[in-house]
């Protein structure tokens, strides 16, 4: 597997964008209570701001129906004196915005989900994070090194496959690593791919009540220091895709040779680019018309 090209940074000034999964269906059944989770995360965020005066932390809440910014350490504090009591101010600002967000997100739910936890809008918060980072890039050559940390517990939503992959490729182009810390019960194929493709770190902590230790040992590492430190490597990556027609996860299907859209069954023409496909071969024929999506090694 080819190493991911990364920018060479000479100092440790970081911009950390944290995507916080707030899906209430997930949190109501999670092994770690949301309040304990928040206390680990808040201490972690404060530690990032502590180690370098120029570090910046932004938090985006990933809800079921919406996403929004809930904290930005660089925004001018209303009362400059709070700068010194940073932690209480950080806590109260963030928690207040978080509560407003969750209430608002819940109101947007049109119907009660029949079964299962349902997914959260990872694609939305990833996109918002990348837009914010693009703006930072444009402030000039002296910008903090940006990276994204996804704190995700909800399962992947296959209907978000295309949007998530687009965000991942965009992050790869901009050389913004996406770190993943999975706190749900199952692994996330989306996040495994995201971290693999962008050169970030993927981790599913074994013991969630030690979350701060995982965060400080692995995810607090700035991009400059990653050249020198051992970080968890992926054991294997789940490269399965979703079909564009039904959003089902598949590992064998049809691909348009013009735009590489994926379909689970034969169509007359591609719904993405409009190319007309040739005659369908009946099943059981040679495998030349059927392309299997396999991971490139």
């Amino acid at each position, binding site marked *: 597997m080819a190493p991911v090209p990364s920018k060479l940074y000479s100092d440790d000034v970081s911009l950390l964008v944290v995507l916080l999964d707030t899906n209430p269906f997930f949190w109501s059944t999670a092994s770690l209570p949301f309040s304990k989770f928040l206390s680990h995360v808040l201490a972690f965020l*404060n530690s990032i701001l502590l*180690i370098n005066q120029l570090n910046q932390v932004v938090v985006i809440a990933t809800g079921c129906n919406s996403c929004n910014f809930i904290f930005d350490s660089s925004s001018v504090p209303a009362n400059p004196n709070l700068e*010194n009591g940073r*932690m209480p101010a950080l806590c109260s600002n963030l928690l207040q915005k978080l509560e407003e967000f969750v209430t608002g997100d819940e109101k947007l739910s049109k119907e009660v989900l029949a079964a299962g936890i349902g997914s959260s809008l990872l694609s939305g918060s990833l996109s918002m994070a990348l837009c914010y980072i693009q703006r930072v890039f444009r402030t000039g050559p002296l910008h903090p090194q940006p990276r994204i940390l996804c704190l995700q517990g909800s399962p992947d939503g296959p209907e978000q496959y295309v949007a998530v992959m687009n965000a991942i490729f965009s992050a790869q182009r901009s050389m913004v690593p996406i770190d993943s810390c999975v706190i749900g019960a199952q692994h996330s194929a989306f996040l495994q791919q995201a971290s693999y493709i962008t050169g970030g770190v993927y981790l599913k902590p074994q013991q969630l009540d030690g979350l701060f230790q995982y965060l400080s*040992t692995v995810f607090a590492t*700035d991009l400059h220091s990653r050249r020198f*430190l051992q970080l968890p490597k992926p054991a294997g990556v789940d490269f399965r895709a979703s079909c564009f027609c039904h959003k089902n996860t598949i590992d064998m299907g049809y691909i348009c040779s013009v735009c590489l859209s994926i379909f689970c069954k034969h169509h007359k023409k591609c719904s993405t680019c409009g190319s007309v496909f040739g005659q369908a071969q009946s099943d059981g024929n040679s495998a030349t018309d059927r392309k299997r999506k396999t991971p490139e090694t």
Partner: protein
Amino acid sequence: MPQVKIIAKNFMDMVASLPAMKLDALYHNTFICEAILRSLPPLAKKYILQMLYIDVPVTAKAMEEWVLADGFSKHRVAIDRLIQLRVFTETSDRKKETSYRLNPTFQTNLQKHLIYGGVLPREPMPSNITVRLPSLDDLEAYALGQWECFLLQLISSTQTEKLTNFSSSMMKVFQRGLLTQREKEAPRLTESGFQFLLMDTNAQLWYIMREYISNSEERGVDPADLISFLLELSFHVTGEAYNINTLTEFQRNTIKDLVDLGLVKLQQGRKESWFIPTKLATNLSMSLSDTSSRKQVVHKTNYLMHSSTAHVLSNHYIA
């Protein structure tokens, strides 16, 4: 210019050379812990975060496993720095294996700082009392003006009127190494003196601070107290007024010297008097860190400022 890195590192060397008990006493102040943390190389900062909640010593061998081959020299530098500043304490067990753990005082206070945040021992005064507070621009102009006055007195050979309140013996301490001090000869700028004039303001300030602190014992002042106060001052808010009566007697005397260096401005109200930290004071902890590349932008204004100062001063000197 890498000068700030070198000078500031020397400051940390000076902190490191304090006796163990004094250093431990310094670490009772959470702002000192934060300033020291920020001054360390990136790998050392990382190690502190990782070890923050670990109560048992970790073997040096285990720590080496954290590092890739590329990082080994940086690893050694980080560990050495941590030991030098007594942030890491070293123990050897019966098997002669070295282990490290965080200095317990440092550890407890940093944990507290992380969870509860740091609170300064003084609050800014309410604005209804502090009328006539200078604007940030005026304050910056004042600070640089004071600093220029000090520099002028520092390198002047013929100045008869005193521009600052520093005693002549104190000025001689500052001038050591920068001016030749030979009998029956007018003092002249040495090579180091010229280099000093070319450094940016923060580097010059650190140099003077270092001399001021090194000399403190002769003046009957505890260097640890002085370092503690200076670092704490750097965490105050620029432009805010803090009541003088929140300072100890020693701190009040120190403040008078700091006025001459442009670090604080003193003002008097009807009943109370207060001090206002300038940017020169609050930038102190920032320039402590190893990363000097970004400071080029921050100090751009200082470069313009000091290059004209150097011009003025060396003109004065050569004349």
